[in-house]
């Protein structure tokens, strides 16, 4: 292969389907990063050429398209997927065909593959930080909701353990079927309203999240009366839901577009200048942007056509990301990230009210979640390895 040939990478994000809002922003971030990389000389003079496929939200299409990208387009790296079922579908292909998937969404953990690098958060990063924040209220009563699949149930289990060990209580837990319609959401919100918890912990994603907020508003609820806390409601979701519905509710995430650090501000400015549009930046946008640059970095320092070389260039690497300086843990292939708490504003952006003083190590196989008396994370051997930094003071 001559050294001036372009390097192809696969890109799998859905432009339609239930999680298209977030996936479109991930696609835009990926394209933006590729443009930056090529403007900066590509991979040692070779252009990085994304081959973009639209699986329209269907896990089986993700699987089939991943297989085609690898066998027909000869890509070594695929950037893509949003839900766990999409990732699992692609995992079965990259495992077999010797390719690498870079995954930019947060998920429930309990996975490792030599063929995946994870750029999103796992529960020991955002969930713990959110629980610490919620427990600033004395003995909060939480009602946990979500769709009925692995992420909401695991997320709910972990938050339940954390809140209960911190002196709070779980008022109830409801998981709705994927096909739940407006009536089901209305019934759920009526039930919750009657139960009158302090906080709703909301694990609905994409379309379901929009339906949740519709029912929430229709039942005349607001943040002053019953706050909603989430790990997934991002700026992208708020654009669909409407900022008046989400006003005052909180999200824990590793990135908010309103961050005032220079790296973030200059990144957003470059995006506007290069693409002549507003960036719909959110936690997945940040991770998708970051993973593209990290892959390019690894390709530059090693053999860009060799999977093992790319992979070892990614593991242990660091990158000055919009969210903060991230690095990839060489043992578990997940990222050291910067959890933050944001309160949704009227303009659809977040006011950041708490953040960590250091990046949090990923512990994807963490099984126990509880606080000890000092409000630290319990001190088993593994938790010590993932020591929890102090929360910086409120910035408001």
């Amino acid at each position, binding site marked *: 292969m001559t050294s001036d040939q372009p390097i192809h990478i696969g890109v799998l994000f859905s432009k339609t389907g239930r999680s298209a809002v977030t996936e479109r922003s991930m696609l835009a971030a990926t394209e933006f990063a590729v443009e930056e990389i090529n403007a900066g000389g590509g991979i040692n003079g070779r252009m990085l050429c994304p081959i973009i496929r639209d699986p329209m939200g269907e896990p089986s299409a993700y699987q089939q398209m991943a297989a085609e990208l690898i066998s027909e387009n000869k890509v070594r790296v695929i950037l893509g997927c949003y839900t766990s079922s999409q990732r699992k579908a692609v995992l079965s292909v990259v*495992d077999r065909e010797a390719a690498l998937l870079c995954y930019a969404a947060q998920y429930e953990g*309990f*996975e*490792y*593959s*030599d063929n995946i690098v994870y750029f999103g958060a796992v529960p020991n990063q955002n969930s713990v930080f959110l629980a610490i924040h919620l427990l600033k209220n004395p003995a909060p009563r939480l009602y946990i909701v979500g769709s009925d699949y692995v992420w909401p*149930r695991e997320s709910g*289990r972990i938050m*339940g353990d954390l809140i209960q060990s911190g002196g709070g209580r779980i008022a109830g*837990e409801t998981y709705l079927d994927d096909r739940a319609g407006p009536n089901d959401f209305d019934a759920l919100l009526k039930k919750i309203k009657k139960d009158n918890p302090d906080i709703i912990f909301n694990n609905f994603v994409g379309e379901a999240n929009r339906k949740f907020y519709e029912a929430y508003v229709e039942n005349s609820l607001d943040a002053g009366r019953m706050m909603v806390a989430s790990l997934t409601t991002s700026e992208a979701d708020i654009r669909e839901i409407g900022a008046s519905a989400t006003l005052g509710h909180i999200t824990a995430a590793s990135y908010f577009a309103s961050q005032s650090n220079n790296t973030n501000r200059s990144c957003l400015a470059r995006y506007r200048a290069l693409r002549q549009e507003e960036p719909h930046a959110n936690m997945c946008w940040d991770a998708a942007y970051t993973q593209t640059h990290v892959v390019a970095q690894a390709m530059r320092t090693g053999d860009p056509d060799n999977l093992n070389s790319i992979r070892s260039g990614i593991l242990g690497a660091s990158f000055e990301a919009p969210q903060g300086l991230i690095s990839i843990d060489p*043992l*578990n292939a997940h990222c050291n990230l910067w959890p933050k708490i944001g309160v949704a504003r009227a303009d659809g952006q977040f006011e950041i009210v708490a953040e960590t003083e250091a990046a949090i190590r990923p*512990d*994807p*196989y*963490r*099984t*126990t979640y509880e606080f000890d008396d000092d409000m630290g994370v319990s001190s*088993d*051997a*593994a938790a010590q390895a993932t020591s929890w930094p102090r929360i910086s003071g409120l910035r408001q």
Partner: protein
Amino acid sequence: MRPGRSEPFASGKEQPFLIKDLRSLSFLLVQPQDSDGLALRSHLERIGCQVQEIWPPPQTYPDDIDIIFVMVDRVIESSQTFHWQADTPSAVLIAVIDYENPLSIDRLLHMRVNAVIGLPIRPFGILTNLLAAVNNHRREQRIRLSLERAQAKLESCRMVERAKLAIMLAEGHSEKVSYAILRQLAMTRRTTVEAISSEVLTRLGWGDGGDTTNLADLHEATRLLTAGDLSAAISVSDRSA
């Protein structure tokens, strides 16, 4: 219990060893330092386990090791011996194998491995396999323990029966009275009926496989053995009868 999809499978009998307890276990990997060994060690550390490695295989294993992984084919290739008490295992044993031919399968069955993992190491499934093996091993240990207790209980029952029979034959008492005599003796001497029965049988030379005692001798021996206590025992049993 939290509502969830696991409910239909819950047995409700014994608390299983759960994933949350995994990080309290200590692991020993019996393997040479090579890339397969590193892959296994890395994944166990990723899960959060406390892992030690040893090579060549030692003669014995410390009691504080809960789970042993052994790279069986590496042991054979390097002409080492894996010493293992298959009847009284001190830990959960998990074999890591390259070959699946009849001879190697036989060998694994004789070692009584609790689980098997194939090479090359594929992280998916190790955690689940591990927890299933730990639970099966613990259940087997519990069953073994209760079986030992049942056997001991059976043995002591048999001894009491024989001591009772001896007294019945010698003194012509009923079964009930004979037992009351044994019990009274046990109470007087502040010991158990089993211990008294054992003493009676020893004094009479009624050990397993011993010669049959002459009935007259038996009477005399029983009389001497129970002298002073016997009349009280009989009167107690008569009153209660």
